[in-house]
């Protein structure tokens, strides 16, 4: 068993454990042991604001993808050919387009002279073009779109595993469609929900290019602070420390969530 897993273990060791250990080492070693880089993170409010903003955006985007993604996954899982294939194709096709292209596409849509504002002002729905981009709003919209597949696909996989018979059984026992959905389908789809939430949330935390291009320069997420620190400070340590704190924060979030939700059961392990 261990032998079979050993190539994978080696890869994990080489690509995960060693680099993470290395950057954590850098964050406390700068020609000698130092906690200066960590001290700075806890003293200067730039860092706190960035962490707060990053987690806020991550929460909003994760919630947004769940709200939009659940009905889509539900439709894909419950509908017959060719509709299910068509729906999944619509989810996956943009997924194969570069993040940069999709980000610029949102810029074209949302900017002052963009399609959305032209439509709104053209129909006299608004007098002045709305500020839809170059702010947190535009960043969140684009991130929800970009991350949607990471929500829909795990949801679809979980929903596909729910046998039709259970729904029929629920109905035959007198449950209305809403009741059956709430008592049978929804609980059984939770492993997919948790998987999707986890994936999207974690991916949000490391987003760089979308807030950089659509955030108007004010929406400074942690990844941007990391890159700024590489420029500003002489050693990699400053950037490593920020990355280290982000890693710890993520682990802490999962630890807390794990205390309240039976994660292992929800993820389908007995």
């Amino acid at each position, binding site marked *: 068993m261990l032998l079979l897993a050993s190539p994978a273990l080696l890869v994990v060791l080489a690509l995960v454990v060693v680099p993470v250990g290395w950057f954590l080492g850098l964050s406390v070693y700068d020609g000698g042991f130092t906690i200066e880089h960590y001290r700075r993170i806890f003293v*200067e*409010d*730039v860092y706190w*604001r*960035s962490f707060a903003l990053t987690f806020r955006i991550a929460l909003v985007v994760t919630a947004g993808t769940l709200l939009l993604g659940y009905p889509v996954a539900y439709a894909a899982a419950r509908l017959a050919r060719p509709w299910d294939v068509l729906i999944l194709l619509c989810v996956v096709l943009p997924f194969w387009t570069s993040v940069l292209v999709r980000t610029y596409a949102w810029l074209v849509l949302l*900017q*002052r*002279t963009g399609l959305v504002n032209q439509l709104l002002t053209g129909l006299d729905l608004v007098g002045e073009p709305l*500020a839809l981009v*170059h702010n947190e709003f535009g960043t969140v919209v684009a991130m929800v779109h970009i991350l949607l597949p990471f929500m829909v696909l795990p949801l679809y996989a979980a929903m596909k595993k729910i046998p039709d018979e259970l729904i029929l059984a629920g109905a035959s026992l007198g449950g209305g469609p809403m009741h059956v959905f709430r008592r049978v389908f929804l609980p059984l789809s939770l492993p997919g929900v948790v998987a999707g939430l986890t994936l999207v949330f974690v991916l949000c935390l490391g987003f760089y290019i979308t807030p*950089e*291009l659509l955030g*108007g*320069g*004010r929406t*400074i997420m942690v990844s941007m*602070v990391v890159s*700024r620190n*590489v*420029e*500003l400070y*002489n050693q990699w340590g400053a950037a490593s420390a920020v990355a280290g704190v982000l890693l710890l924060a993520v682990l802490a979030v999962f630890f807390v969530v794990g205390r309240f939700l039976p994660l292992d059961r929800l993820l389908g392990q007995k």
Partner: protein
Amino acid sequence: MASVLRPLAACSAAALVAWTTPAWAEQITFVSQGGAYQKAQTIAILDPAAKRLGITINQDSVPDAWPLMRSQVASGKPIWDVVDVATGFCLRGGEQGIVEKLDFSKMPNAAAMPEQYRSPWSVAYEFYSSVLAYGLKKYPDAAAAPKTWADFWDVKKFPGRRSLRNHPLATLEAALMADGVAPDKLYPLDVDRAFKKLEEIKPHITVWWTSGAQSAQLLNDGEVDMVMAWNGRVSALVKEGAKVTYTYNQGILQSTSLCILKGAPNLSTAVKFVNEAVEPVLQANLPLHIDYGPANPKAFDTKVIPAERVGQLPSAPANASRQALMSYAWWSSPAGEAAEKRWLSFVQK
């Protein structure tokens, strides 16, 4: 990921070139920022210099050379020789032992350049300017268009959407000029005063731009009406027929410089190349291919640059005298670095 891999791939490509070139030919690896700018240099300066000196110039390009300069020197075996990078990084590199101290006695062309265009570790290579640019649709009348940073700050007289660079460099200078400081009396910058002035304009800034391409796109799409942008980006829009223009008045004259990495594999050839790269005629070639000005003022005496072209260049004497010359020495001083660290907190709030 791609941004990490690209420089790495570029480095290994350069290493390969270095390895396959015959050992007897003198060679250097020269690094610049790529794109149209590096192409223009190749025609104007690099190829002629290689021919004159009988050397091979291997090229590499990376948008942000500074972290790589540091890690190459830290590795103990740099593969780059000469780097063309924003002058501030040459100075910082010099102070941190990342670039070689230059021996100007071996570089007569560089030694003849004005002192403020040189540092112990670097020599200016080309000039560009952070200028006030605006849309002609919003301000069609040249007489009633914004001309100074005070105008840029005057939101009553000049209503419209504005954008500034998401970086303190040149932005603090503009703020001080808007507050009435004369272009030749800027340094040392009064950082508190500059940030105070910036707080005034902050609510009216639609976008704090990060890349030159972004600044051009914002102006071209009418997303903003007024922007501080690099002259080359705006003149490229003008050439494409966009309804935009700019003024050199109160522009902030900035440069990139050439410096040599500490422990460069071909140090003596690199020194010869740096001297040749700032030679007046080669320098005068550059503006024939791109909208950047020569760093060596003697280039304007060579007659290589047509008269009407001279008027468009940021470093032409008539234009330079209307601008502020950026002091990279101040920006790489502790006060300058502190101002840079303060920036993030300013835009974020």
